[in-house]
C-alpha cells in the first residue's frame, strides 16, 4: 500500500506552492517533494529526474497546466498527474487528459490523502489485487456453541473490527469471526461493502440514513444500529451512495446471494 512516492508540485503563486509542498511533505506515503515555480522549470526538472506524480496548477503564465499535462502524456513513462486549481470548470478537460485526480484550492488534507491513495493504485507496486480472488466469501462460517453455521453476506448490515476478529452485525444476530477487517474488506469490497472508519465496514444497501450532528460527526444509520463514519471516509461513502442511488442499486433484496 505504501509506495514511497517522489512528487513534483507546480504552481506560479509562491504561497500556494509552499502550502502544497508542506501538505505533501506531511503525507505518509510521500518520500520526496520537489517544487517548480513555473511550467518551464517543471519541464526541465521532469526531464532530469524521475517523478511518480506531478501536482499541477492550471492557470499559469506561458504554458498552462492542461497544456503541460498533454506534453507529459507523450513521455514514454509519464508521471501520474493531479490538477490543483481554484476552478471546477476544468474538471472535464482534466480527466479527458487522463488526470488521476482533481483537487480544489484551498486543499483539504483529507482530499490530498485521497489523491495520493489513487496515485498509489496507478503507480505499479507489488501487492495482490482483490479482483483475482474468487468470490468464496459470500457466506462465512461462524461457531456458535460448538456448532458451525454460515452467515450470508446479504444479511450483514455492517462489520465491526475487534482486534484480529470482526463482529458481523446481521439480521440473525451478532457473529464473531476470526479475520482482520482489512482482509474482509478485500473480499467483500466488490460486493458493496465500504470502509467508513478504521474499525467499520458498512453494506451500502443497508444504509437507511446519513446523520450528522452539532459536533460534526457523521453516522450511517442502519436497521441494526448506527455506524460511525470518519471524516476521511465521508466523501467516499457519499459518492458511493450517490452512485448507487443513481443506478438503483440501493434495493437490499437484489443483493441477496
Amino acid at each position, binding site marked *: 500500500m505504501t509506495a514511497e512516492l517522489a512528487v513534483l508540485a507546480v504552481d506560479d503563486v509562491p504561497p500556494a506552492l509552499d502550502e502544497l509542498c508542506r501538505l505533501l511533505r506531511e503525507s505518509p506515503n510521500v518520500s520526496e517533494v520537489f517544487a517548480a515555480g513555473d511550467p518551464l522549470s517543471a519541464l526541465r526538472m521532469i526531464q532530469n529526474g524521475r517523478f511518480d506524480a506531478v501536482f499541477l496548477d492550471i492557470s499559469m503564465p506561458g504554458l498552462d497546466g492542461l497544456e503541460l499535462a498533454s506534453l507529459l502524456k507523450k513521455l514514454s513513462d509519464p508521471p501520474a498527474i493531479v490538477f490543483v486549481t481554484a476552478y471546477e470548470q476544468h474538471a472535464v478537460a482534466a480527466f479527458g487528459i487522463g488526470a488521476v485526480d482533481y483537487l*480544489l484550492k*484551498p486543499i483539504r488534507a483529507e482530499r490530498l490523502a485521497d489523491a495520493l491513495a489513487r496515485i498509489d493504485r496507478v503507480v505499479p507496486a507489488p501487492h495482490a489485487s482483490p479482483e483475482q480472488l474468487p468470490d468464496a466469501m459470500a457466506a462465512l462460517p461462524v461457531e456458535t456453541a460448538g456448532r458451525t453455521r454460515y452467515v450470508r453476506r446479504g444479511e450483514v448490515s455492517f462489520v465491526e473490527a475487534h482486534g484480529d476478529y470482526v463482529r458481523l452485525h446481521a439480521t440473525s444476530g451478532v457473529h464473531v469471526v476470526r479475520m482482520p477487517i482489512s482482509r474482509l474488506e478485500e473480499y467483500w469490497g466488490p460486493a458493496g461493502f465500504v470502509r467508513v472508519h478504521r474499525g467499520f465496514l458498512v453494506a451500502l444497501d443497508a*444504509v437507511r440514513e446519513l446523520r450528522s*450532528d*452539532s459536533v*460534526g460527526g457523521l453516522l450511517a*444509520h442502519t436497521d441494526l444500529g448506527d455506524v460511525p463514519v470518519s471524516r476521511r471516509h465521508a466523501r467516499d461513502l*457519499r459518492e458511493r*451512495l450517490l452512485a448507487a*442511488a443513481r443506478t438503483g442499486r440501493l434495493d437490499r433484496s437484489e443483493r441477496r446471494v
Partner: protein
Amino acid sequence: MAVSADQAPDRAPARLRPRPWSRSDPVAVLNAARHIADELKDGLTGAGVRAAARGVRRLLEADRVGLADLSGRPMWAPSPPDDEHAANELVEEVLHTETKSGRPPLVALPLHVHHELAGVLVVAGSVRRSAVREAADWVVEALERGRLEASAEQAAQAELRALRAEISPHFVYNALTVIAALVSSEPDRSRELMIDFADYIRYSLARHGEYTTVADEFHAIETYLALQRAVLGERLSVQVRVAPEVLAVALPYLVLQPLVENAIRHGIEPRAGTGHVMVRGEAEGNDCLISVEDDGLGMDPGLAEEILAGRGGTDSVGLANVDRRLRSVYGAWFGLVVETAPGEGTRVVVRIPRFQPGVMP
C-alpha cells in the same frame, strides 16, 4: 425529394404550388403579415429571414425581395436578381447613407430598429413606393417586437439568477470575524474553517447549470453549518439526516441553505440558550421531502404567509425567493409549506418530484 417537401409543407409552398392570392382578402393579408412577423422573431440574422422575404414578396406582388443585415448580403426570395452585383452595391450604399436609394424597378430602404440601423429591405419589380414603405415599416415593427421579447426573456432569466445569488453578508462577516480571531490561537482550526469558507463561497457562486443534486445540497449545508457552529458555538445544536435514496434527486441550486439560514437567524440567534435545528431529506412515494425545523420563537401563521408572498421585509426575502424558484421550476403546487405558531418553532417543508423532465444536475 417529395418526402422532404411533405415534411416541411410551410417552408416553400409558394414556389411549389402558388395558391390563389388576393390582396383584397383581409384574412390572407393579416395572415401573411403575421407570418412575416413570426419569421423575424430572431432578427435579421435569424433562421427565418428568407421565409420573411418570401412573405414580403407575396404581399407586395414583387418580382423579388431581399432582406440584408448589417453584413450587407441580402437573403433573396425567390432568387437573387440577374444583376446581383448592382443590387449588392445598392444595399452597400443604403447601409452607408442610411437613407433609401434606387428607383423602380429596384429600390432599397434602410431598416431602423429602435432608431438604429439594423439592415436593408430591397424590392425589385413594379411596386408602388407607398406599398414598399409600408412593408419596410412592418418589417421594422416586427424586428422591434422580436427584440423586446428577447430582452423580456433575458430579464426573466436574470431575475431567477439574481434570486439564486444568496450570499448573506451578515453570515460572511461573522464567519470571517471568527476565522480572524482563531488565526493566532488555533491556527489549524482557522485553516480548516477557511477551507470550509472557500467551499461555501464556491458553491454559492457555482455558475455551471441550473440544477444540482440533493447530495450536493446537503453537503453544502454541512459546510455551512460547520461555519455557523464556529460562530454560534454551544448555542447551536444541529441534526442532519438524509436517506440515500434521495441523494441523486435533482433540484435547483441553493434551495436548502436559505431555509437553514432562516431557521438559525429567526429561530436561534434572537434568543438566549441553545436552539435546535433539524434538517431531513427523505423519500415519500414519488416525491422527495426536505424539511428544516427549528424549536425557536415561531411566528403567527399570517406573518409566515406574508413572508412567502414576499411582503415580509428585506430580512426574510430568502424564503420568498426559494418559494418562487421552486414554483417556476416544478409548477404552482410545489412551493414551500411553512408550519408555525408563536412559541412553537417553525417547520419549512420542500416537496419536489423525484423525477422531473428537464431537471437534471
